[in-house]
């Protein structure tokens, strides 16, 4: 498999968070356009694993590649210039508190407008479109995240990830803390990314409903390693 045939690749990656081992010399390959669901007990390090995979934190050892490009957490803009557009939705937080919902969504596009070939007007239009697509009402466009409910903040984060038209999208517990209506919006977007052959999707979740909806390759993070899992065993462990 050549580098360009790789959506996400971990090569002998080790990482510790404090005295907790998240990954221990783990190697893993995800082909472009495919979907991966990461499960695991609470506190096992699913979020940290996603940060590692997205190149947000440096690995203690080993190498992480996204779309064939090596990640360097100290220079995140390098990935964009190499054609890797990452979208990341955090479990909570992640929105800039001093920017409005609209400015949060527009920031990434505005910062890379020359790479994306966007004018200021199209940045604004696209930000408005993405917020509308996830059901954020117009009156919330100019509100700071601190003034918005958790559910709306999550939608804004989703819109921010969508705005850059990602070819690799990471979702960390995307429907946690959401009511059924909000969760359904998130599930629909995840399903559309799963069906989009140009998007490599990584979702960390333990929710059976979402796992069944996505029905994709699944691994469990346990004892510093990724163990392949199937839906049937996941169902039975959920029943237990």
């Amino acid at each position, binding site marked *: 498999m050549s580098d360009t045939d790789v959506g996400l690749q971990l090569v002998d990656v080790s990482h510790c968070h404090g005295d907790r081992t998240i990954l221990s010399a783990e190697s893993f390959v995800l082909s472009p356009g495919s979907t991966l669901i990461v499960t695991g007990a609470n506190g096992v390090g699913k979020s940290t694993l996603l940060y590692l995979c997205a190149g947000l934190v440096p690995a203690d050892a080993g190498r992480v590649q996204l779309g064939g490009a090596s990640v360097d957490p100290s220079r995140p803009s390098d990935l964009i210039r190499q054609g890797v557009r990452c979208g990341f939705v*955090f479990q909570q937080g992640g929105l800039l508190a001093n920017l409005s919902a609209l400015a949060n969504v527009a920031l990434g596009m505005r910062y890379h407008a020359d790479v994306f070939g966007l004018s200021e007007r199209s940045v604004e239009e696209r930000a408005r479109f993405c917020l509308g697509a996830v059901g954020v009402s117009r009156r919330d466009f100019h509100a700071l995240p601190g003034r918005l409910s958790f559910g709306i903040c999550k939608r804004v984060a989703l819109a921010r990830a969508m705005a850059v038209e990602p070819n690799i999208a990471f979702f960390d517990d995307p429907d946690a803390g959401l009511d059924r209506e909000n969760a359904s919006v998130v599930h629909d977007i995840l399903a559309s990314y799963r069906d989009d052959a140009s998007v490599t999707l990584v979702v960390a979740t333990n929710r059976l409903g979402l796992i069944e909806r996505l029905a994709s390759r699944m691994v469990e993070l346990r004892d510093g390693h990724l163990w392949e899992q199937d839906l049937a065993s996941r169902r039975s462990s959920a029943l237990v």
Partner: protein
Amino acid sequence: MLARLGRVGIDATSSWVAALLTLATAIGSVATPGVAGRRVARRVTLLQVFFTGVQGLPIVTATALIIGATFMLQLIVAAPGLPGEVVGQFLVAVVLRELAPLVTVIIVASRSGTAIATELGNMKANREVLGLAAMGIDPGRYIVLPRVIGVMAGVTVLTVYFAVLSLIGSVVVALALGAPSLLAVQHGVAATLSVVDLLLLSVKAGGGGLLVGWLCCHFGLAVRGSSTEVPTMTGRAVIGSVFGCVLYNFAVTVVYYGLSGSLVQ
């Protein structure tokens, strides 16, 4: 005991290496390509100049007037027979060359420095910095560099402003108390003041601004993940930058007088 000392030494060294790395990454980000990113960073820089330079004007105005007035009052009361020319020389040497850059940078450290360290600490704790990285935005370019440049520019302008206002404050007291002769003071100031003083003031103010901006960004970003660390890091940032500025101010003064030959006499 020796082991503890060694550990303290290692911790201090690694802390300084990390701080230098923060600055080096920010300076290195100047070379990062991307016109649009540069435009966004420039907007953040202008905002920082506004927060530090413009919003800091009222407190700097009041402090400069009071310090100038107090200094003149002390001279008149403690040394009543002092000639006006000498008073003018003292004003330049003490207020303009030393107090103006030092007091301004202390005001900025306590105003903008705390704001920067607290803001960045909270950004770190709320994963906003990770959020920026997730959008492909370099924190060095978007967060650190604009704040360092903004604080440097703000401190430099405020220092010159402080120097002028402190002179006005001292003149008002001299006029009110009737001694010493204003003309003689003016002669003393004019005879002592030179173009080099403007350079000295800029070096002290620019360097002080760099220290405040850099250290406050560094300690703010050193928060690991809990908002309870923010007050501790803010305290370290302000104390570190104020002490650093005092040392820097002293060093520049020594070098200045050393180069001008005054120390040899």
